[in-house]
C-alpha cells in the first residue's frame, strides 16, 4: 500500500488533477471538499501527508489547521497549505499556526509532487502510516 495523502480542496478540477498525479506516483489519495468536517476526517484516520487549501467553504483552511495542531493525533502531521498568490497574511498565518509548507496558486504539478514526497520522506520511517505494521 502506498503512502496516504488527504487532499482537502473545494475546487473539483484542481482536486482531480492533484489526485491523478499523486495516484500515478503511487500515493493513495483521500479527497475532501469542505472545511466543516475536514479536521474530523483527518483525525479519524490520519494520513501521511495533508494537502489543505486555505479558501474552503464552511470553515477556512487556517481554522482546520489550527484544530489539527490542537489534536494529539494530528499535531505533528505534515501539512502542505495551498494559498492564493498575493495573500501574504494567509502565508504568514499558516506558518504561524503550524503549516509544514505552503504553496501558492497557480502551482505546477511537479512542485506539488515534489513537496508531497519531501513531506512524506521527512516523517520518521516508523511513523509513515502507509507502511504496514
Amino acid at each position: 500500500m502506498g503512502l496516504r495523502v488527504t487532499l482537502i480542496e473545494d475546487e473539483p478540477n484542481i482536486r482531480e488533477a492533484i489526485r491523478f498525479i499523486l495516484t500515478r506516483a503511487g500515493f493513495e489519495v483521500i479527497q475532501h471538499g469542505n472545511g466543516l468536517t475536514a479536521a474530523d476526517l483527518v483525525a479519524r484516520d490520519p494520513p501521511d501527508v495533508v494537502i489543505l487549501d486555505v479558501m474552503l467553504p464552511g470553515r477556512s483552511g487556517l481554522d482546520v489547521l489550527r484544530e489539527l495542531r490542537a489534536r494529539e493525533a494530528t499535531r505533528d502531521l505534515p501539512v502542505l497549505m495551498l494559498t492564493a498568490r498575493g495573500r501574504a497574511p494567509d502565508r504568514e498565518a499558516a506558518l504561524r499556526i503550524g503549516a509544514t509548507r505552503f504553496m501558492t496558486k497557480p502551482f505546477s504539478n511537479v512542485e506539488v509532487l515534489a513537496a508531497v514526497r519531501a513531506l512524506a520522506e521527512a516523517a520518521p520511517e516508523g511513523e509513515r502510516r502507509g507502511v504496514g505494521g
Partner: protein
Amino acid sequence: MSTPRAAAAIGSTEGRTGARIRERRIERRLKQADLARACGISPSYLNLIEHDRRRIGGALLIEIARVLGTDPSTLAQGAAAALLAELREAAEGVPSPDARGTPPPEADRVEELALRFPGWAALLAAQARRLRELDRTVGALSDRLSHDPRLADALHEVLSAATAIRSASAILTEPGGVDPPWQRRFLRNIAEDSLRLAQGAEALAGSLGEAGARGSAPGDTPREEMEAWFAARADLPRLLSVDAAAEDEAAPHRDRTRTVGPGQTLAAGWPAPQDDPPDDLPTSPAARALTLAWIERLRDDLRRLPEPVLDAALAGEAAPDLARAARALGLPLSLVLRRMAFRAGPVAPAAGLVLCDASGAPLLRRPVAGFALPRLSGPCPLWPLYDALTAPGRPVRVLCETPGPARERHEIWAVAEMDHPEGLDGPARAEAVMLVLPSGATSGARARGIGPGCRICPREGCAARREPPLAGVGAASASPSGPAHGEPIARPEPRLPAPRGGPRGL
C-alpha cells in the same frame, strides 16, 4: 518620518512665499490695498496670497517682486527650502548602511548637491515624492484587496481556474500521454475552467473597472466614479454656473430656498434630463445618476450663495469664521461649507470636503493635498465630521494635524443637519459635512492628531484605533467561495492510472 529640521523647513515662515511677500510689503510700509492695486489684483486675493491660502508663481510673482523692489527668487526662497527638505526626507529613509553595505547619502551636503546639480537634486526630490505616492497607492490597493469582497472573489476565481488549467494541461502534455478516457476528462476540465477563467477575468476587470469617467480608477464604485468625474472636470465652475435670471424667467415659481438633496432626486427616479448635460458623464447608470444629482445640488447651492456674495462675506479674513459668515448671510453653515469646496476663481481653492449620512457612509468626498481619504477601509474616527454627527446643528471647528513626514495641519469645519423628509412621523435624516482647509497655524498651536483611517494610518498610540495598520499581521478569514463542494466526485471517472516508479510513492 521627517527630522524636526525638515518639518521646520516646510512649516516655518521662511518656507512660505506669501509670508515673505507680507514681510517685504510691511518693510516697505506699503498697504495691502496699494500693493494689490499696483499688481492688478484684488486686495482680498492678495490677502489670501500673503496668508499662503493661494499659491503664486509665474508672472504675478514677478510683478509683485518688481513692485516690492526685489527679485522673485528672494520671495520664493520657500521653493528652495522645500527642495532641501524633500532631499533630506529622501535621505532619512535610507538605512545606514543598507544590506549591500552601500553607505548612506551625505545628508550634510544636501545644499551643495542642490547648488551644484540643481537638475539632479530636483529629479531626486521628484522621485522621492513619486515613491511616497506609489507607497500610498500600494497601501490603498492592498487595503482594497483586503477589504473588497468583490475583488477578492474575482481574484480567487481567476487563480482557481488558472491553477486547474495549468495542472490539467501539464498532465496532457507530459511525455507518454494519458489514457484516452483521462484525456477526454482533462480536456473537458480545461474547457470548463477556460470559461471560468474568462468569466472571472471579466469580473476582475469589472471590479477593477474600466473608467467610465475621466480620472476614475479601476474598480471605482459609482460614488467614486462620480467623485473622479468632478475632480477631473477642469471646467467645473462653468458647468455649475447658473443663469439665475434665465431660470427665474423659465420657472418663476421655483422654490429657491429648499435644499435639493441627491437622495430626494434619486428617490424620485432618474434625475430629469438636463438641458445641457455634459457629454462625458460616467457610463454606469448608477454613477451617471449620482453625478447628475450632485450637479443639480451644487447648482442649487450656487443659486442660493453666488460667488460674489460668498467673496464679500469672506473678504479681508485669512481664516474666516464660516459660522459667523453663515449667520450673517442667513444661510445654513452646511451650504457655506459645500460652497467653499467648489469655489470658482483664478486658482482653485485648496479645500477638501467630505459628506456622510447618519450611518457614516460617505456621500461625497473631494480630496485636498495633504489630507488622505481612504477608499474602502473606514475613515479616522477622530475626524471632526463625527463630532458634528453627534451634535446636529452645532458648528465644529478644529485644528487638526495629519501624520506623515510633513505633519500637515488643516483647519476643519463640520456641521450636521437633520430633517424629516417624510414628516415628523417618519425617520429623521441626518447629513454631516466636513470642510478641510490648509492651515497657516504654526507648529506651536495645539492640534488634534487625526489620520486617513486606521488601516492605513501610521499614528502610534492612538486611543481611537480600531484595527492594526497594514503593517500588522492577521489571519485572513476565508469566506466560502465557489460551489459548496463537499461530496466525493459523483460523476463516473476513468480508472486511475497505475503507479509509476517505485512503490509507496517515493
